[in-house]
């Protein structure tokens, strides 16, 4: 099936079988390796991408569903000012350990800062509920987002 969408700002046109999931299209067909495969069951958040600005699990959506949409992955987000600030804050605050969940966390965080620049600590935690981290215990992740959000508000 013909599918066209905008990936990190650039148009993409593909012919994919209807049963192909977005994560596989990104990783195997397009070589976009930022979104990770942690469970492939919409249970962990490592594959998070933005679909028309909203975070979604790319492991749980058919590629044909994103036809005509805008998809942003960590690769695109990292090019943007806010994305860079988040990445730097995560790195500086010790919010990254193994790093496998990190692209997903930054992707979700990017959307949350855009969505709610007044998010409280509890709201930040709530937005991040769908991203599991097994290394950090979440404290430093929440702190890293808080630092960026308070700067972003100003």
């Amino acid at each position: 099936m013909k599918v066209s969408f905008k990936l990190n700002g650039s148009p993409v046109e593909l012919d994919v079988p209807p049963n192909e999931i977005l994560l596989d299209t990104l990783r195997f067909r397009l070589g976009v390796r930022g979104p990770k495969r942690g469970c492939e069951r919409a249970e962990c958040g490592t594959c998070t991408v933005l679909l028309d600005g909203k975070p979604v699990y790319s492991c749980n959506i058919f590629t044909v569903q994103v036809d005509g949409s805008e998809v942003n992955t960590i690769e695109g987000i990292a090019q943007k000012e806010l994305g860079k600030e988040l990445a730097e804050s995560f790195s500086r605050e010790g919010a990254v350990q193994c790093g496998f969940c990190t692209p997903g966390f930054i992707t979700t965080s990017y959307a949350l800062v855009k969505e709610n620049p007044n998010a409280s600590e509890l709201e930040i935690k709530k937005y991040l509920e769908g991203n599991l981290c097994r290394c950090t215990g979440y404290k430093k992740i929440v702190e890293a987002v808080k630092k960026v959000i308070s700067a972003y508000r100003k």
Partner: protein
Amino acid sequence: MSSTDLERLMNKWLSAQEFYVVGKKVERADTIEKALGIARYMEDYYMRDMLVIKQVTSKYPHARILSIDDSQAKKVKGFLMNITAKNIPGENQVGYSIPDQPLLADKKVRYVGEPVSLVVASDFDSALEAAQLVKVNYDPLPYVLDPLEAMKRNDVLVHEETGSNIAFRTKVRKGDVEKGFSESHVVVENTYRTSHQDHIYLETEASIAIPNLEGKLTILSPSQYPHLTQKIVSRVLGLPASSIRVVVPYLGGGFGGKDDQGPLTSAKAALVAYLTKRPTFIEYSREESIAVHPKREATVIRYKSGADAEGKLKAIEVEIVHDTGAYANRGPFILWRATMHASGPYVVPNAKVDGYCIYTNKVYQGSFRGFGNPSVQFAAESQMDVLAEKLGIDPLEIRLKNILTPGATTITGQVLDSSVGVKEALEAAALKAGWKEKRKAYSSMEGRFRKGIGIGVAWHGISTSRGVPDWSAGTVKIELDGSVSVLVGIVEMGQGSPTSSHRQIVAEILGVPLDLVHVYFGTSDAPDTGATHASRGTGVGAIGVYVASIELRERLNSLAAKLLNTDPEDITIVDGVVRSKKDPSKSMPWKDLVKSAYSKGVSTTSSGYFFLPKGRFDDEMGQGFAYISYSYMVTITEVEVDTELGTVKVLKTYPAIAAGKIINPVQVEGQIEGAFVQGMGLALTEEFKFSEKGEIINKDLTDYVIPTSMDAPEIAEPIFIEDRFKYGPFGAKGVGEMALIPAPSSIANAVSHAIGKRVTHLPITPERVLKLLEGR
């Protein structure tokens, strides 16, 4: 350099008081590329020309394999072959401590999920489809799932050749426990149970093997010890170790699990690559990962302790049963560690401890952060609270009365001459937590929601035990441009030792700017540095690069002294500036010093090696030298219990650690926070449910419940007690596992405090809380 010279120089650096990068909140070298999504993990290296491997696993807990039929699988387009035990060219033997475990089941299977064959195909879908079509014919055998039952039965044997389901026994015999109990004012006895725990590293096991023309293999391996993978692969393939090159890329978490399963994952990839002469790729699905790889042991611990009227411990008698599942794997070592730590960090004059590692037809046990210690510390720490209650003493006081201090003797008879900061850690944490006030306030709470506060104290021997040879090695090379290349076998799996502490240690000693130090880690090309486990990544793993840097620094000091016309002792090198202490006007840039070394014939490469001196251990009595050094950890935790629903919320924890010199405080905090939350999972929600056939039912992240951001408690800034360890780099000990060890006991003690009933079974599910409240 002679060993006395080396010891003198190590002592010099050990007593260092001023640092320019060590002890500072320095950003890690790897985290920015991880945050930007640039860092590559195993699957990111997959290429479409690689053959894909899918495991066919056992559906039976115990059965003879009659035949394996791949005729239907052959019809799948893209199917290449089905590889079984028969195809293994070397030894089909991967047992870690006992040769009891095949890579692929041969003759019989011993747990649901055991790998039986490897389907090889050109693409993922073909591999998945073909694996479904491989028909294994089994003759089911009687099986045993409960370890207490398995211990007693000889009619159903997981391994016939052993004649018993007891895989391994351990013991400690110190003093006379009968006498100790008779001198006790109170004696309490309880049975404690803990459940299996899965690591849930977010990256499942995956590996790539690439053969070359000469039949040698390069393996990308998800392992915590590249040289162990090299050894296991060479055994399975019957090739010399030098034919196997192992590279460990960034790992998406390890926690011990990849120490066990990493080499086996790679052995599967390597086996297929060797047989097909093509690059191969294997990745476990999440369900497969949970079904196949070893878990934290489930335990039953019977614990009897006695204390005099003042609360001084007189005796303990402990029986530890570990459900090791189908294979011993590291079970004997895990049990050994549990046994030697059974007292908790306390002085106990009379001790009798017996450990049993029991085979059952379930998924086997293996390494997991804490390694047998969280469960036994849970039992020991619960007993301390029970004793305190019986004696009417505050739980903090009874601990302080018995706690290990420098010069104390452990239950194995080891004298702890130095680096024992647990008492200070406990006192400081109690003060910070407001222990006395809160303990009192919460004791009088009534109504539906009740708060509790509990203490968990733990000790943990660093690195490998007893006389097991233990060493550290690493190479440091100063490049002509002044940058420094460091080569170590320690891997990066999230803990960050090569990318933070190793860099800081090398930079501090050489005096070179931190950003000029580059650590190349996790490959069998590096000197064998030992495994990245047992909290040894820095405290032991970095001794090699520490020693190499010290040697280089001596050479550079001599050279600089000549160039600046002074004595070597007068030279300081800090952040790239070489200077005379007496006459600071005499100085030169680091890069010039390096250029001079190259032009004046001073070697700029050094290979550091250190063999840890160890003592004797008598296995008959369980007495002697157990560990080179111990780290200590305290967590004081507050919870709130809903007595109607039985739910527990962890509100806050106050950690304190005595782990010697803290090289990077941010990273140590990160280890403590992460380990605490992982321990909270063990304490509250993480548990496997087994079917009647011993199959794990909850093989996904919906029904195997780990904490989310919404579950994470508040964690106070940790207190550091820097009780330096004489061989560690600048006195560093280990940190990685530490907070996980007392976390469950502090939570269990807090819950017990809140509800006024003793928790003896982890995880503390709402159902168990309600049962306790109902007095059942």
